């Protein structure tokens, strides 16, 4: 994952508005993805916005030479905000509709695209059903590209715990999607047989 150039970060810390814009552009997808995983799409944009607001206020206190990367530091802020939001309001389980549909449709035939989109939606549903700590580890690893050590720092847990949480998350998603894919495949096979 790309990191913000050191010179841009330095300009950010001096209050340069253009540099801060570059920072948001660099990290917005990662922050948003984490917020989707932890709070759902309905609140993700709001939480991502709040995250960058906090980043703007605290960027002067970020230590470029410290142990944390800028990305890890920003995602830590997002993680805490999402956690606080989950504590103050019961987390909604969201049924994702249409996520990834355009990408799938561009690369597959209509049947595959429909099934691919269905699996993407099913992944979001299955993800929303996981415990918060598993969702966080999953998003930080799979969508934000953090190393295990960085995830451990964000979560405040040992690396071994990160690995086990990620394994459990992947296994749960694999099972959920496999059941759906299996059913869908059978339907497709039946359709093929009827067509033949």
């Amino acid at each position, binding site marked *: 994952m790309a990191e913000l150039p050191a010179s841009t970060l330095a300009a950010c810390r001096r209050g340069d508005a253009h540099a801060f814009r570059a920072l*948001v552009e660099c990290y917005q997808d990662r922050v948003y993805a984490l917020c989707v995983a932890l709070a759902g799409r309905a609140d993700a*944009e709001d939480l991502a916005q709040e995250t960058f607001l906090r980043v*703007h206020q605290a960027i002067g206190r970020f230590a470029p030479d410290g142990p944390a990367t800028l990305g890890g530091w920003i995602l830590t802020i997002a993680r805490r905000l999402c956690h606080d939001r989950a504590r103050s309001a019961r987390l909604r389980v969201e049924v994702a509709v249409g996520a990834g549909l355009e990408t799938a449709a561009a690369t597959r035939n209509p049947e595959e695209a429909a099934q691919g989109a269905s699996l993407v939606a099913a992944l979001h549903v299955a993800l929303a059903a996981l415990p918060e700590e598993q969702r966080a580890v999953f998003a930080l690893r799979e969508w934000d590209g953090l190393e295990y050590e960085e995830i451990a720092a964000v979560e405040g847990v040992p690396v071994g715990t990160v690995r086990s949480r990620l394994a459990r998350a992947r296994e749960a998603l694999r099972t959920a*999607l496999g059941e759906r894919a299996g059913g869908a495949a059978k339907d497709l096979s039946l359709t093929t047989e009827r067509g033949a």
Partner: protein
Amino acid sequence: MTRDREFMTGGPQGLDDAALDDVVRRAAPRAPETLLPQVLAAVAASERARRRRRWRVGVGGVAGALAVAAVVLLVLRTRSTFGPGLSPAPAGAEAGPWRLAAAAGDVIVPGGGVGDPLPAAAALTVAAGGSARLERGGEAFVLARGLAVLRTEGATLTLLGGTARLGGDGIDVTTAPARIHTMGRDADVELTLQGRSDMDHRFLVAKKGVVAGAALGTALLAIHVYRGQAVVERRPGAPPLTLAAGDGALMGASGPPLVVRAPVAAPQAVAAVTPRKEGAREALQAMRPTGARPLPPSGAARPTAATEGEEGPPPLNAELDGALDKEVVRAGIQKIIPQIKTCYESALEKAPQLNGRLLVKFKIRAQDGKGVVGEGEIQPDSDAALLAEPETGQCILDALAVAEFPAPEDGGEVTVSYPFVLMATPPPLGRSRSREP
């Protein structure tokens, strides 16, 4: 079929890693396009709110003290002890030692009497009801009313309490809340510094209870500018505040000053600090000497005088022929913008719709180590409406005549063509006064 195998290799229990990774990759959320502009807007709003909070904290700290002090001063100040304003300083007057020119009542001046030069550092005490006029070259100040103690060190005075009225250009006065510098040869600036010892403790405690405690610990400085202008320098790091003729300011030992602008406003480039509550404005009015003209209505339109292309004193868009840097000329012009606004406001009284561009050509020549404006004229390619008001042009030329510049580098003469854009603008919608962060 390929697609069947792809989705069935995991069997009923799940997908293989490659298939799962593929779905996970395609499921990765992408930030909506609206996020970036929303973040930037939120950051901008946060910055504005932060500045407002900083202002409110400052104002809140002194607001109570100011309100109480205004009441006290209203009681104490039943009349102005000053007569008419100080006479304008004669041009080219030589600066020498300070002299006690006149004294009335109980005036204690160690080691000197009326007419005698004062030592380099002199402490003066003027008892209640007395007054002392001191002069130095073309500059003068009068001490009066209450206890006032000053030390004279060159052209720098330290006002420890009481009231002083300053006349002439370049008098530096240091007080607890700020340092004040008079500008303009006919400057006429009054300072009233109320310290702890000036307060009527019994009155405050009896009438205002706990609030009085804050006032008692606060040195309160009132500034009124009758002519010329004053530059107020506050704590290190705080931007200076320029007050023009008719302006008043009230300052505590901490926090930003409260300023009420007269129609002859200070230049916009020096941001106006104005009270947010009408009470502060009334407090300032109460502190004004008897006979002083009332403060302008808060919603009054503010005339602006700007060089072409921008509001306030902008980058010089002028033609310049000679050995003087444009920025230097611009800085000199900036100092007389308040006077030029005065000229424009006078013109607006006769022609409320008057506005336009006035091109002024003038020469700067070296004299006594300074650059002075020798001659100037309004250029015929100015807007016709302004050319039809010759008094306005003459007023601006008069203002230019007191402008100060460095001497041209080659000791010769510099010709400057300078455009002034004059226009009256209403105050911003939603708030009648501007505010300094």
